[in-house]
């Protein structure tokens, strides 16, 4: 028998090679990166919810508090930061809504509603809720 070149090798106890997952695995492919970006932008979604709640709180405290809150929103650094937040929100929303038909199978009687209709319904709901919020905030 030929002497093994790998001294660690034992004939009846094979050593399987296990590859380690590189820490930057998500840079390997655009689709992996898109996934990580979708997950990370959920932090911005949480921020947007808190921002909305903060505005509701300011409205509840009275006109002065609300005016001060709006003045803070209008400050240039805040505007720039919120523009970035908005981009992140749009990215998260679009990538999230596009996945919805994969998880939801909706039936009408015995027939399955086509995935495209489920997608359109999600976008329609998004637009309607956003429009209602704009109306609500615009009136205050």
């Amino acid at each position: 028998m030929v002497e093994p070149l790998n001294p660690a090798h034992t004939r009846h106890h094979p050593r399987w090679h296990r590859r380690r997952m590189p820490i930057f695995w998500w840079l390997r492919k655009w689709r992996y990166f898109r996934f990580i970006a979708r997950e990370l932008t959920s932090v911005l979604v949480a921020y947007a919810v808190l921002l909305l709640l903060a505005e509701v709180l300011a409205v509840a405290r009275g006109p002065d508090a609300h005016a001060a809150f709006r003045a803070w929103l209008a400050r240039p650094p805040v505007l720039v930061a919120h523009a970035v937040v908005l981009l992140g929100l749009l990215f998260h929303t679009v990538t999230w809504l596009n996945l919805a038909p994969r998880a939801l199978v909706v039936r009408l009687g015995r027939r399955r509603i086509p995935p495209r209709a489920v997608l359109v319904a999600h976008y329609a709901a998004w637009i309607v809720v956003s429009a209602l919020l704009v109306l609500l905030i615009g009136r205050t």
Partner: protein
Amino acid sequence: MPELATVEVLRYRPEREAAPSWETFEVPFERNWMVLDALNYIKDELDGSLSYRWACRMGVCGSCGMMINGEPTLTCATYLESVLPGPVRVEPLRGFPVIRDLVGDLGQFLHKLRAVKPWLIRDQGEQPDREHLQTPEQLADYKQYSMCINCLLCYAACPINELEPGFVGPAAIALAQRYNLDSRDQGARERLEVLASQDGVWCCTFVGECSEVCPKNVDPAGAIQRYKVTATVDAFRRLLPWSSR
């Protein structure tokens, strides 16, 4: 087109080397060759010690899945021409321990597959006097998931499979859904324990890559997300006071 194609294969011969290394082969370029034909040429003509799995040559057996240029692919269904100009890099599927060259260990997967009970389960003591009938609509509910050939490209594409080795994984969950959604099956509750566990569907973060690489359009990612909805509804139902459990 070139007369020769360069194929780089990640070799691992545990008796010779402690870690895998690339070996380069020159194979003749033939227009009608698949990548698998190039590997067969290497084995027949250049180096008979090259180890890899294959069987049917027509995308049915699911044996010849490998990483070609970093993408999990069936080597019998990929034209050599489509990955040229080379070098064409062939590696074993990611996420599986490598036994030798391009051969990965599938033991963990087979264990997971058995755990989800991928067969028709009927209530015990049943004595059917005829076959269980099924309408075309009922067949359509699960047919897509029955197309899985266990090629494991979805596991190689799934980063969660590498990060969380306990994850039941895309193909096993899709196959569990194949039976859960079958009108003749009564075993959904038996599968729930595994599928709704921490290593089940909740491990999945919906990267979605499993469905992208699936050669049979099974959409395992969709199967997993659908089961998340099922498991959530089931959990809420159990909270109801009139629930039987």
